[in-house]
């Protein structure tokens, strides 16, 4: 079985074990074993770059760690995907910075060559639509609204992943799994999760608007593929007030896993 390293990122590692469980179960069914990445660290995210040019050493460290284990990386969050991909691009085009990064990595016994690939789980699943459709013996009867992870698709010049304004890949996956997609006005709007770090009211309003838009369109499930999206659209529902209608939220591999007939416990849904 093909092996890849799972880079969970800080948020999923700390808060969303069900996402990790479901990702491992679904990819195993599709022929990929996700191996835990011992020693991984924060990717720098959007946190470190404004403070120091040293930010690039963290994603470079993780990429070099994957290289040392001769495996490509699978990511679950948007921010990690963007940080690792931008680092690959930056180091591929800047020999001076590459040399500087490698001087630092040498101090921890690693060297970056750029040979480890990075794929978000959407990309992995979108590349196996036929297998998903063939194995989807139990199409979930949900009317699904999607939230697309901004950091996996933009900036498109660097990420080269999907349509940056109307991404399709999550839609294709959900359709292959046999669920019904619901179009809604704010489908392609950001969930606003990161705004929590600067203004809780803005973050709450962004989440409320998106949830109401999906509910108004008739959705009975929100599906996400990023820890931040779940934080905003799932966990933040508790803060919206007692009279707010609820919308269940699920991670993408949990929905796909249900379609493939994988048990709820193995998908972190029980």
């Amino acid at each position, binding site marked *: 079985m093909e092996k890849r390293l799972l880079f969970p990122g800080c948020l999923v590692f700390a808060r969303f074990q069900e996402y990790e469980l479901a990702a491992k179960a679904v990819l195993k069914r599709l022929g990929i074993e996700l191996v835990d990445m011992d020693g991984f*660290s924060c990717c720098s995210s959007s946190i470190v770059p404004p403070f120091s040019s040293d930010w690039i050493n963290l994603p470079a*460290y993780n990429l070099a760690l994957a290289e040392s284990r001769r495996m490509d990386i699978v990511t679950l969050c948007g921010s990690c995907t963007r940080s690792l991909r931008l680092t690959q691009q930056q180091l591929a085009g800047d020999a001076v910075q590459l040399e500087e990064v490698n001087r630092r990595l040498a101090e921890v016994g690693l060297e970056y060559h750029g040979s480890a690939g990075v794929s978000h789980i959407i990309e992995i699943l979108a590349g196996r639509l036929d297998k998903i459709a063939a194995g989807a013996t139990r199409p979930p009867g949900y009317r699904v609204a999607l939230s697309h992870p901004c950091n996996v698709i933009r900036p498109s010049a660097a990420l080269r992943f999907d349509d940056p304004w109307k991404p399709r890949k999550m839609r294709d996956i959900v359709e292959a799994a046999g669920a019904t997609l619901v179009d809604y006005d704010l489908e392609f709007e950001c969930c606003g999760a990161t705004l*929590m770090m600067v203004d809780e009211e803005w973050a709450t309003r*962004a989440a409320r608007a998106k949830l109401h838009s999906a509910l108004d369109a008739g959705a009975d499930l929100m599906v996400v593929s990023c820890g931040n999206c779940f934080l905003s659209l799932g966990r933040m529902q508790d803060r919206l007030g007692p009279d707010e209608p609820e919308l269940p939220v699920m991670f993408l591999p949990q929905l796909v896993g249900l379609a493939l007939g994988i048990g709820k416990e193995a998908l972190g849904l029980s």
Partner: protein
Amino acid sequence: MNRKSCDQCGVCRECCIVEKLGGEAITTILSGDSETGAWNCANCWKCIESCPAGFDIYLAIIEHRRAEKAPASYREALDNICHYGYIFPMEEIDRIREMWRLPPVRQVDPKIIRMLTRKCQLIPPDNKDDDSSV
């Protein structure tokens, strides 16, 4: 500052979620309507995607954030990353993973993080950096 190629056309303002929520962001700064707001960002990068001039808005964001005081949440997250290697402390993580029947994952050695983020240790709270390259 690399504002030369920003035509102040305002296209980025139309897709910025912070502006839609009534706040000021990098897009407001670039248009000349605000001096601050670079930290007010959802990291959706629609501004970068929409720019018809191909202006490097990301570089502008970094430059402006370095000139403004960082929110406490960012400083705390930076502190955690530089100390533990992660945005959050992970003391309880093995126990939580066991509850989910997930095996433990070896955490990064904080000494490695200290070596990789030497300059970051000097930065908060005033955002100064001895190397301004992004």
